[in-house]
């Protein structure tokens, strides 16, 4: 996917101005998810389980080479064809080869953020393959030609009326058709696609190294259909998605479901152990593409590597009051919200993603929600610090910071500033900053006298 992260501040402002409905839809949905998560965490010893999950992931990441080799071995033993993709080009080559060999005309695709990252849909379309997104939300935004707005709820930014209008235009349903009727239309289209597609594409929530098992969580059932009906199944798996043992699922499946949607477990969990055997139904060929795309480099980054624990549950997005105002689109890349703000600089390079680490007030709600305890606020600070060191901060900010330090380091200057605030003209280069503040909040109203002046009287008061 082409990254437009640089435009974040402008795009966020534009969206708030031009599409107030998005804010309403996203706020409503994320608050709902967030309430569910809090309730679901409340039923368990969330702190202990998060700590355990973090440790399992840390163990995995610090022994990743071992587990990748083990996973490859087990997958092959299970009859799965294993591929390695360093970058999107590798992934394209692998997929193109499979699609061409099988003469694929139609593909059904289960929701997967990694395939967004790799640009799987544009590639298939360029090969003349018709691609159907089969997750309902994902299908909606495919029809609209939009990228996902949320890791778990790709169409979270749409209101019912948006969908009614879309279906009215595409399928001629009435403008006031109830959600059930719309879902029925989509189901009919997608059922046909499931039955005729030669290729099924998916991501994976987990890949168990010990047994070579692909694990997929969902609520609609479309992932199970996408991975079992077509005769070929290709799964794209980020190398950080491994789990060491099958037993780890007992921890990770419920914890992820609780974090993501507040469920105790997702409605469907598919464990895929390779192609169909003699007499079984299912795909004849299963391919697993293990994707790096910047992850190894991140793993070697002593400060930023912790993002690789991420399960893509979306809990940090739901908890984030900044994300809640705009949804994911202004962030300009596959991963938005708090996790996007710390992952995208790692994947895209800080220069490309510069403004994203600033898309936060450092309120810490994301960290509280994260099932694997990724210290997102700390990572945001790290990326900001690096941005400044690399000279990416705008000139006005650098200037303001230098003046700020000068004033605050010098009590005499500080007192002068204090006077200026109460009447003297303010330094010109600080004005744009001031305007950004006062436009939405009115003029600053300092106390008639600053405390450091009042202190003298307080000292006397004490003496009496």
């Amino acid at each position, binding site marked *: 996917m082409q990254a437009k992260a640089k435009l974040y501040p402008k795009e966020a402002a534009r969206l708030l101005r031009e599409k107030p409905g998005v804010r309403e839809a996203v706020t409503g949905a994320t608050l709902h998810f967030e309430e569910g998560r809090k309730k679901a965490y409340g039923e368990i010893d969330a702190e202990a389980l998060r700590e355990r999950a973090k440790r399992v992931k840390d163990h995995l990441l610090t022994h990743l080479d071992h587990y990748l080799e083990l996973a490859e071995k087990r997958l092959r033993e299970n009859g799965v064809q294993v591929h390695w993709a360093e970058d999107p080009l590798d992934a394209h080559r692998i997929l193109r080869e499979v699609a061409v060999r099988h003469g694929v005309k139609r593909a059904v695709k289960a929701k997967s953020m990694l395939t967004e990252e790799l640009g799987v849909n544009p590639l298939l379309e360029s090969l003349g393959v018709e691609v159907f997104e089969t997750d309902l939300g994902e299908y909606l935004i495919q029809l609209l030609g939009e990228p996902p707005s949320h890791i778990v709820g790709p169409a979270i930014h749409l209101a019912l009326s948006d969908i009614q209008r879309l279906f009215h235009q595409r399928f001629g349903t009435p403008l006031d058709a109830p959600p059930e009727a719309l879902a029925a239309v989509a189901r009919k289209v997608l059922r046909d696609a499931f039955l005729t597609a030669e290729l099924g594409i998916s991501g994976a929530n987990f890949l168990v190294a010990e047994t070579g098992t692909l694990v997929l969580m969902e609520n609609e059932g479309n992932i199970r259909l996408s991975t079992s009906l077509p005769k070929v199944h290709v799964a794209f798996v980020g190398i950080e998605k491994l789990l060491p043992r099958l037993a780890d699922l007992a921890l990770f499946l419920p914890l992820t479901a609780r974090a993501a949607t507040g469920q105790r477990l997702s409605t469907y969990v598919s464990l895929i152990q390779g192609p169909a055997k003699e007499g079984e139904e299912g795909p004849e060929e299963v391919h697993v593409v293990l994707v790096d795309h910047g992850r190894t480099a991140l793993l070697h980054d002593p400060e930023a590597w912790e993002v690789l624990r991420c399960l893509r549950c979306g809990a940090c997005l739901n908890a984030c009051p900044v994300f809640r105002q705009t949804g994911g689109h202004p962030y300009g890349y596959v991963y938005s919200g708090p996790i996007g703000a710390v992952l995208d600089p790692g994947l895209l390079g800080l220069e490309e993603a510069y403004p994203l680490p600033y898309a936060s*007030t450092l309120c810490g709600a994301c960290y509280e929600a994260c099932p694997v305890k990724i210290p997102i606020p700390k990572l945001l600070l790290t990326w900001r610090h690096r941005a400044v060191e690399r000279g990416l901060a705008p000139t006005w900010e650098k200037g303001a910071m230098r003046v700020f330090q000068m004033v*605050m380091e010098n009590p005499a200057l500080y007192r002068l500033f204090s006077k200026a605030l109460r009447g003297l003209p303010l330094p010109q280069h600080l004005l744009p900053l001031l305007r950004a503040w006062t436009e939405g909040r009115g003029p600053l109203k300092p106390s008639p006298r*600053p405390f450091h002046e009042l202190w003298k009287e307080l000292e006397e008061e*004490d003496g009496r």
Partner: protein
Amino acid sequence: MRVALFITCLADQFYAEAGVAAVRLLRALGVEVDFPKGQTCCGQPAFNAGHWNEARALAQRTIDIFQEYPYVVLPSGSCASMVKNHYPELLPGDGEALGLSEKVYELSQFLVRVLGVEKLGNGLQGKKVAYHHGCHALRELGVREEPLRLLQNAGAEVLPWEAAEECCGFGGLFSVKLPEVSLAMADRKLSTLPQADVLTSTDAGCLLHLSGRMGKQGKNLRVVPLATLLWEAYAG
């Protein structure tokens, strides 16, 4: 007992009365209060924006000014957290940074945890209070119950507020780097505000932002720092 008051720059400039209230309150509770000369800003705005060199210089200064005191009390949760949690990150291996970190308290936290004070007086009888949890006080310092208990024990009714623990959108430089998002966050917070007599919080920044926004919207509600209300709780 002797404590140093670190009033921090925003409170100094915009909520000077809160500083006065904090001094009077601490004295009334038998604490000797010092206001060390030369104190300015803890460096948080620079640190949070990534300008660590500037922040480091200010942290160093603050450490020099405050290190001799047994306790340092701030009427600000986020500045307290800056000193407590981030100075040791900013100055790794610096024993003095760590030393200061261990004796820093937000005001209500100091009253409850160090002085063991649970009740100040009855001065808030019948007052309906909306309490905004500043994010750093709440999540970095773990100050959640202390202010509520002190307010309630003084007779205040702390109103249920759906968004009480949600960020108000201030975020220091965030408020001017991403003004539209910052304002949208304030609006969300304020749209759920219950009918209160007064809105309070530990942090001057949040209060400036929220009261400014309310003013723009023509809402008229008394907004004061927690220190001011705690003094009222004591003195009536």
